[in-house]
């Protein structure tokens, strides 16, 4: 007797998305077989993890070395009051396992560094940037270039959000194509504490989850674009057509760009700080 491609109960659990045009059983099987790593279990990572787990992504890695603090609860909705003091990666893993116990979750509580990033991230099909600082954003982009994996990158600050998939297909730009030089730290306003509205991280995180599901199921249009969001803007969303990969990009334009060059790059200097937050503090 031939076995079903999915457990019988999965047809019931995921039926409402499996009946969608262009999704189907094939889409659900792809989700189950895919592996995704979410870097940062903070404001962006929480909604991302929630919807990836609910949709049935088979393997999810969660990287965060930070612990849950009271000031996080205003937006990091996988962490409860009872999780204060617990590692975010653990708290998030427990929350998404409550939604869906059938998915495999890797909890990674170590700091992502130029030394370990390539090895850790190589285990996954898609990388999600849910971090909160420029050095890690450059590091993730460089790793995605080397691994030739798409990087679904979200950012949120104050009332605004931004979303780009870097290294999308053979021609999509990397982060360095758009921003070759890191901004000076005083210009970034990001190594310091800034305000953030929870629902803004929620919207960007949900959009990251959606783009990831589109990539896995083959529903994505695969054209490089940037989505800008401003909670107080009118209109609130703006879609931007982006350049292709740049031939003179220090990362993706360089045939010889490799692991060693990443390790040698001074990501610390990149943000100007003496001790960068390699791992996402969940802004």
């Amino acid at each position, binding site marked *: 007797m031939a076995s079903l491609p999915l457990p019988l109960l999965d047809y019931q659990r995921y039926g409402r998305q499996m009946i969608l045009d262009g999704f189907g059983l094939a889409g659900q099987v792809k989700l189950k077989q895919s592996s995704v790593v979410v870097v*940062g279990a*903070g*404001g*962006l*990572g929480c909604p991302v993890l929630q919807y990836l787990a609910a949709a049935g992504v088979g393997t999810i890695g969660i990287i965060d070395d930070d612990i849950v603090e009271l000031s996080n609860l205003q937006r990091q909705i996988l962490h409860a009051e009872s999780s204060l003091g617990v590692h975010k990666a653990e708290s998030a893993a427990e929350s998404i396992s409550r939604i869906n116990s059938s998915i495999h979750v890797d909890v990674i509580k170590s700091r992502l560094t130029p030394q370990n990033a390539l090895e850790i991230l190589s285990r996954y099909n898609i990388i999600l*940037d*849910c*971090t*909160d*600082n*420029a050095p890690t*954003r450059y590091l993730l982009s460089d790793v995605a270039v080397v691994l030739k994996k798409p990087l679904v990158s*979200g*950012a*949120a*600050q*104050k009332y*605004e*959000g*931004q979303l780009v998939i870097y290294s999308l297909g053979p021609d999509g730009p990397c982060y360095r194509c*758009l*921003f*070759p*030089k*890191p*901004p*000076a730290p*005083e*210009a*970034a*306003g*990001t190594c310091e504490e*800034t305000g*953030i509205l929870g629902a803004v*991280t929620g919207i960007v995180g949900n959009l990251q989850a959606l783009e990831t599901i589109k990539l896995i199921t083959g529903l994505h249009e695969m054209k490089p674009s*940037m989505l*800008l969001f*401003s909670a107080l*803007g009118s209109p609130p969303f*703006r*879609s*931007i*057509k*982006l*350049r292709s990969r*740049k031939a003179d990009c220090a990362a993706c334009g360089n045939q010889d760009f490799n692991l060693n060059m990443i390790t040698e790059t001074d990501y610390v200097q990149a943000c100007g700080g003496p001790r960068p937050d390699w791992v*996402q503090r*969940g*802004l």
Partner: protein
Amino acid sequence: MSLDVLSLKIEFGGGLELLFSNQRSHNVTIPSKVRRDDSTSLLPLEDGIETKPADITYLIHHLRDHLLKERSELFIENKTVRPGILVLVNDTDWELEGEGDYALRNGDEIVFISTLHGG
């Protein structure tokens, strides 16, 4: 282009608006023909002065000289926008439009957006 001036819609985002009276949207009028050296004096162009059609490089200087309220180093660096700022021409990445050399047209919408790092 027969117009003497160009009317542009300028928008700032990602925190850049803080440098411009904390206002995201601005309507800006600039001459359609400007000094090749990007100086933004409003005096008439005399004979012998080298000119060019107004482009984004000129606009950046114009905004610095006539709209910016503080700390120009957070907006301009080496005759272009500082690292971390993306420029959009009518919702398209300026790199696809010739970057600073893009010749502005009446009614264009130019957006200056600072990349966000938070999460």
